[in-house]
């Protein structure tokens, strides 16, 4: 196979005006057409940068503009060649602000068959920017398996047939060998068997442990037969409008993360403290939402789950992303048990919950191993917890028989879970049904099995918490246009005029809060910065962005920008056929906890009211789901108002 190479980057460079280009930007978007086997650098201008920033801001617009079904209504579906896979960084990627190596993946995902915004960190964003590109836009479908290789101006679609079947870590290893590079010299984001086999919740995994996990973006990559994207740490310089200002803003953010009470534990231990903290609120999901008592998990001793003990259980070391000083990401070597000596990525809180508590497992070594198995297969660890936990419960109750599954799978059986994972990733036997994700598998089985499955009617599944005691997150997850929380939890809410805390079980307050916090997350996810290192004051982030680009970007600008992005994603979701009827939790997901700290708190009793309030607050039409013309005009989206409402706008 002859590699397809970049067409005419030189010509294009003359049109991209480095002098007027805002700082922080590389200046080009890379368009890759897998059907035509072409790679083209498209320069983009300062106005478009200011309007879309990058990340989900850019991705949302590309999806809206480029994925409408040809000749008529509707949208292309996730598996159509015209679907786009946008891998976007942002203006802060590659600069010395903590945690700026990330990417945002935007695509029509296989889970909801609607828009997606999902993030991962590592060095992808950094390496891509130093090669001269702010984002990659993939379209078409390749005949044979390929991988995309980027090294400054050398951009090639290379033969990946020898990589097929390898898991994501093996793929990165094989590409290290092929290129003779190692470590952060080559950032590799790839899919494993689950992506190749179009598992509906397949993720894209990169740089040993970073996962863009939501909405089956890995299945989209698999459908396109794109095995991996490998980016050499490029040699092009990034300018900043006020470089000293960027360094100072970075210091300010770092200081805040180190010292602020709400960020400090994250700084010291990443998301590890979540396990114990959330268990005290009833937000740690246990055994498929059947209980909220950790004592119902065999062998659970909460004292060893305190963050320092959890970390020290392993031989561990920091494995940070670009320019990051958090003591968050770590590599660990398992010290005890069957998997002794194995190198794993230290699980996030969501790994401990998805591969642990949700499936009734409390063996830390086993859970850590299973979590990395998920990453290697490229399976979303959250959905894995809901799927595997559901199968375990169904077997216990006799809804799924041993014969159906092919073996017995009991609560807490980590090895059995891995066996199931391999079946699902390869669509073997019963794994073929499960590979469709919790919702579709549950609907296929129907009856009482369906009643105990955790999902959202849109086709996605929640993040790794028990949302029955985190109502904001359930509402956010169900109303989101991007298959996972679109607004996110509060970060310094008083900075944007929201209360410091609310009554978490008052539906009205919750709905107002979720609406009031809207915008921030979509803004952050457009910058190429990590969700954790952006847990600082919005003002500081705006300062970093302003110093990088030379724009005067205020907190108001940021929120407005975020709301605009969310409105555009909403418009695409509507075109994909998402309706208000889908904004509901499944029976189990929206059930009432039977024990634990949130016992008896019934979210479904308040759900309709919560939706009414949320719709009124965000300025969307409850009947059609559309953002109201007035809302759109306030956001400066007159064109979208015309698109959605025609003359009525």
């Amino acid at each position, binding site marked *: 196979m002859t590699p397809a190479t970049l067409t005419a980057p030189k010509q294009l460079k003359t049109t991209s005006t480095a002098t007027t280009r805002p700082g922080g930007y590389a200046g080009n978007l890379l368009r890759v057409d897998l059907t035509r086997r072409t790679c083209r650098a498209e320069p983009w201008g300062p106005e478009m940068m200011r309007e879309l920033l990058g990340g989900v801001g850019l991705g949302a617009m590309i999806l809206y503009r480029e994925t409408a079904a040809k000749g008529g209504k509707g949208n292309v579906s996730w598996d159509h060649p015209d679907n786009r896979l946008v891998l976007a960084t942002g203006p802060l990627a590659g600069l*010395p602000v903590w945690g700026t190596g990330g990417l945002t993946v935007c695509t029509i995902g296989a889970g909801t068959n609607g828009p997606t915004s999902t993030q991962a960190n590592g060095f992808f964003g950094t390496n891509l920017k130093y090669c001269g590109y702010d984002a990659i836009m993939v379209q078409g479908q390749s005949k044979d398996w390929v991988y995309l290789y980027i090294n400054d101006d050398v951009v090639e679609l290379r033969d990946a047939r020898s990589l097929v079947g390898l898991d994501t870590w093996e793929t990165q290893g094989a590409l290290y060998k092929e290129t003779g590079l190692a470590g952060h010299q080559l950032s590799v984001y790839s899919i494993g068997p689950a992506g190749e086999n179009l598992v509906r919740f397949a993720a894209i995994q990169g740089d040993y442990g970073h996962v863009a996990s939501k909405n089956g973006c890995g299945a989209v990559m698999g459908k396109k037969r794109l095995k991996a994207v490998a980016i050499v740490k490029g040699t092009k310089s990034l300018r900043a409008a006020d470089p000293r200002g960027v360094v100072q803003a970075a210091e300010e953010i770092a200081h805040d993360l180190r010292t602020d009470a709400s960020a400090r534990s994250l700084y010291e231990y990443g998301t590890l403290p979540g396990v114990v903290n959330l268990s005290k609120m009833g937000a740690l999901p246990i055994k498929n939402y059947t209980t909220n008592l950790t004592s119902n998990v065999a062998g659970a001793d909460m004292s060893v789950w305190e963050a320092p003990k959890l970390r020290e259980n392993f031989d561990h070391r920091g494995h*940070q*992303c670009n320019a990051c000083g958090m003591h968050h990401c770590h590599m660990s070597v398992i010290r005890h048990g069957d998997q002794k000596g194995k190198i794993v990525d230290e699980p996030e809180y969501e790994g401990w919950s998805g591969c642990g508590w949700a499936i009734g497992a409390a063996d830390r070594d086993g859970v850590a191993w299973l979590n990395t198995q998920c990453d290697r297969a490229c399976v979303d660890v959250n959905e894995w917890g809901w799927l595997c936990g559901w199968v375990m419960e169904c077997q216990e109750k006799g809804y799924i028989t041993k014969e159906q599954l092919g073996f017995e799978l009991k609560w807490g059986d980590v090895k059995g879970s891995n066996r199931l994972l391999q079946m699902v990733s390869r669509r073997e036997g019963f794994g073929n049904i499960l590979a469709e994700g919790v919702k579709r598998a549950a609907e296929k089985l129907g009856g009482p099995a369906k009643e105990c499955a955790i999902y959202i009617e849109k086709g996605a599944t929640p993040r790794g918490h028990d949302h029955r005691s985190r109502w904001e997150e359930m509402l956010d997850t169900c109303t989101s246009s991007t298959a996972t929380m679109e607004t996110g939890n509060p970060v310094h809410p008083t900075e944007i005029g929201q209360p410091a805390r609310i009554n978490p079980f008052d539906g009205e307050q919750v709905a107002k809060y979720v609406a009031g916090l809207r915008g921030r997350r979509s803004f952050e996810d457009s910058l190429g910065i990590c969700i954790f290192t952006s847990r600082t004051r919005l003002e500081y982030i705006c300062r970093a962005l302003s110093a990088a680009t030379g724009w005067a970007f205020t907190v108001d600008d940021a929120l407005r920008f975020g709301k605009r992005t969310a409105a555009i994603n909403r418009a695409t979701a509507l075109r994909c056929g998402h309706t208000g009827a889908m904004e509901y939790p499944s029976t189990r997901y929206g059930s009432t906890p039977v024990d634990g700290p949130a016992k008896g708190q019934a979210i479904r009793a308040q759900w309709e009211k919560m939706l009414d309030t949320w719709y009124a607050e965000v300025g969307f039409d409850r009947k059609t789901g559309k953002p109201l013309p007035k809302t759109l005009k306030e956001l400066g989206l007159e064109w979208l108002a015309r698109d959605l409402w025609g003359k009525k706008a």
Partner: protein
Amino acid sequence: MSVLRLHPQKCTGCLRCELACSYMQTGEFQPAKSVIRVSPFEGHTSYAPYTCTQCAEGWCMTACPVGAITINAVGAKDVLDDKCVGCKLCTIACPYGTMFYDPGTRKAFKCNLCGGAPACAEACPTAAITYEDVATADWLGDFAVERTARVLAEAR
């Protein structure tokens, strides 16, 4: 004299030092132009920074045919741009691989200890690089041996 003391076991591979160095040396953010480089060990799980040790021998200085390498006010070997003819002899002479050549400017470049306020030490969030008044040494040897042994153990 103060030198950069490296503590490889503390390094997390965040590359902040490279970024800070390139900014200090060039005014732009581009690790490829930094004179400190972070290398992976154990495949991908460990990292360690490396830069000029300001070795007592000063091989680069001895090798330079035009006397373009001098010792600056803080005791660092430093390349005088207007004298350097870009012959690259110093890059070959340095046994540590910490003398670089920039094809853009056609000059050699190296760590000059940022004139006494090293940006890398300042930027490193884990204190894996400190600026101390100690005798210079090979900071990486033992670490490299230990981490390489680990990879082999894993491969078995």
